[in-house]
């Protein structure tokens, strides 16, 4: 693998850690670690999704430095005490992982504060680290979650899929998934494109990436894995140190539209039932090919059905757009009740943008 030096240089320049080290050297990095840990602990008690005002968290670089007058600060030893403080613009100094000084309400000059401290700021899902009046944006590999310091991790694939349904699919807040639409502003039709950008390709990449980031204790997540010589399942998860694997079959429901406006495909509930049959077959074949491995199947159905669409549709009422919101699919046979290796299928309804 050749190294792309230009890319590495650009990455080094854009990292908060490099900026802090350049500004404050070793002491700055120690302060940065404290700030990161403090923010992570804070977000365990208070989700950044719920922050409606700016948050500033800092740690002075030099021990004993007091860049803000501490006489009006509140000393917090239990992070749950922070809740009322976070309802207004708030500034927090990290003392250690659970003790903090809080000024609330307080609006601070971040640039000035960063002359002697490493400063983290959060405002409307944007996060920055400041040092010596310079700053870097923190990049979030799963921007559907409000902060890179609060991305959840899951032991259970079922829970990870549930999080994807609620945080990524529902409002299509995953940037990869957002590429699936004919018109992302309405989310009525999926875009008909050739491989490797068919709707199923994009949905698979989106789910694959999300699982890769959020699942713990796995060896690897793989895309388009053959269960035998001819049958590829969408995603295979291999757990670490266990003879345990998961096969995920993805189906999407809804209509695709070609760039010229024609409706190309219309997939309804039958497609989900086809997916269930396919997955049951994969599980049978896979169990035969790797008999000592415990394999479990997960059917994921991305539901983009809208009622009453035709080739002239460019908008939709709430009644029609949300018609299928609670329209669960009936499976026959119900593999998930008949087999121990078949998880309950998970339907993920994606809301359209409806007329006001």
């Amino acid at each position, binding site marked *: 693998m050749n*190294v792309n030096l230009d890319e590495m*240089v650009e990455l080094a320049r854009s990292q908060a850690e490099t900026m802090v080290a350049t500004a404050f050297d070793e002491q700055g*990095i120690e302060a940065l670690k404290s700030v990161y840990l403090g923010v992570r602990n804070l977000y365990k008690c208070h989700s950044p999704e719920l922050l409606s005002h700016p948050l500033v968290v800092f740690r002075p670089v030099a021990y004993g430095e007091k860049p803000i007058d501490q006489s009006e600060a509140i000393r917090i030893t239990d992070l749950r005490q922070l809740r009322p403080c976070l309802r207004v613009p708030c500034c927090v100094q990290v003392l250690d992982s659970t003790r903090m000084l809080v000024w609330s309400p307080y609006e601070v000059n971040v640039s000035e504060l960063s002359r002697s401290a490493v400063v983290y700021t959060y405002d409307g899902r944007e996060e920055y680290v400041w040092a010596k009046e310079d700053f870097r944006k923190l990049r979030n590999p799963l921007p559907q979650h409000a902060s890179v310091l609060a991305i959840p991790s899951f032991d259970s694939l079922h829970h990870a899929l549930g999080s994807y349904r609620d945080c990524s699919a529902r409002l299509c807040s995953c940037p990869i998934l957002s590429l699936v639409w004919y018109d992302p502003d309405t989310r009525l039709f999926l875009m008909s494109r050739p491989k490797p950008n068919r709707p199923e390709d994009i949905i698979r990449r989106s789910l694959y990436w999300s699982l890769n*980031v959020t699942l713990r*204790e796995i060896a690897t997540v793989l895309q388009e894995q053959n269960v035998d010589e001819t049958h590829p399942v969408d995603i295979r998860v291999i757990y*670490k140190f266990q003879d345990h694997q998961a096969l995920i079959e993805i189906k999407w429901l809804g209509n695709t539209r070609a760039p010229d406006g024609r409706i190309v495909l219309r997939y309804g509930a039958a497609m989900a039932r086809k997916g269930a049959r396919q997955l049951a077959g994969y599980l049978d074949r896979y169990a035969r090919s790797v008999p000592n491995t415990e394999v479990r199947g997960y059917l994921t159905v991305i539901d983009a059905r809208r009622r009453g669409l035709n080739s002239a549709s460019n908008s939709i009422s709430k009644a029609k757009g949300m018609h299928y919101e609670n329209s669960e699919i009936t499976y026959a046979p119900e593999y998930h009740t008949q087999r121990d290796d078949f998880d309950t299928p998970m339907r993920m309804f994606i809301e359209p943008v409806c007329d006001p």
Partner: protein
Amino acid sequence: MRPGVNPYACYDTLFVISRTQQVMGNAMAGEVHLLAYLACLLSMYRGRAASDWGYWFIRSPYGAPYSSDIDRAVESMQANGWIGGVDRHLTLSSAGGLMLETLSQLGQNGPRKGPLDAACASILSVPMGIVRTAVSMEPELRNAEALSLDRTLLDEPEIPVPLHDQFEALRRALGIRVADLMVPAVVWLSYLSRVAQEEMGMQEPLTP
């Protein structure tokens, strides 16, 4: 500690569990192997030989770094109560915490602290899944994957050329010599993660 248990692997295991539980509440066994391997690589970035690390890793059949010495260390320290936890979630007991403090005073563990601290600090700002994905892209694991071998990693007397090239590029990219290895660790992981995303067919990588 049971006879035959590698003391370096014991120290690293306690260290990684201690730091990981600060961030994530507990550590899972695979995360201990992963972060210890990353620490070994960072030690090489600082110029030490892989053989100085004190134990070896292999590429597991599923592509992850794995050390049987860490496995034995976990098992041994669970048996004597230094490591506790429920199910597969590992935590340090208070006795384990005291043992970590004691082992940290030993001169033999001095050179390990920096790389271990940096590997563990990287999960403060880089999600564990990204660390896992990025490490799977480092040249030594990739090479083993290409050869479909579950062989010992980093067992050559010299640092492998592709890894050496990446470290050289990393040094040039950073331009500064920072004592704390967290800085090169995070930049390298970001780079490898970007490579992984490009290989996955993502048009616009989401992490640097």
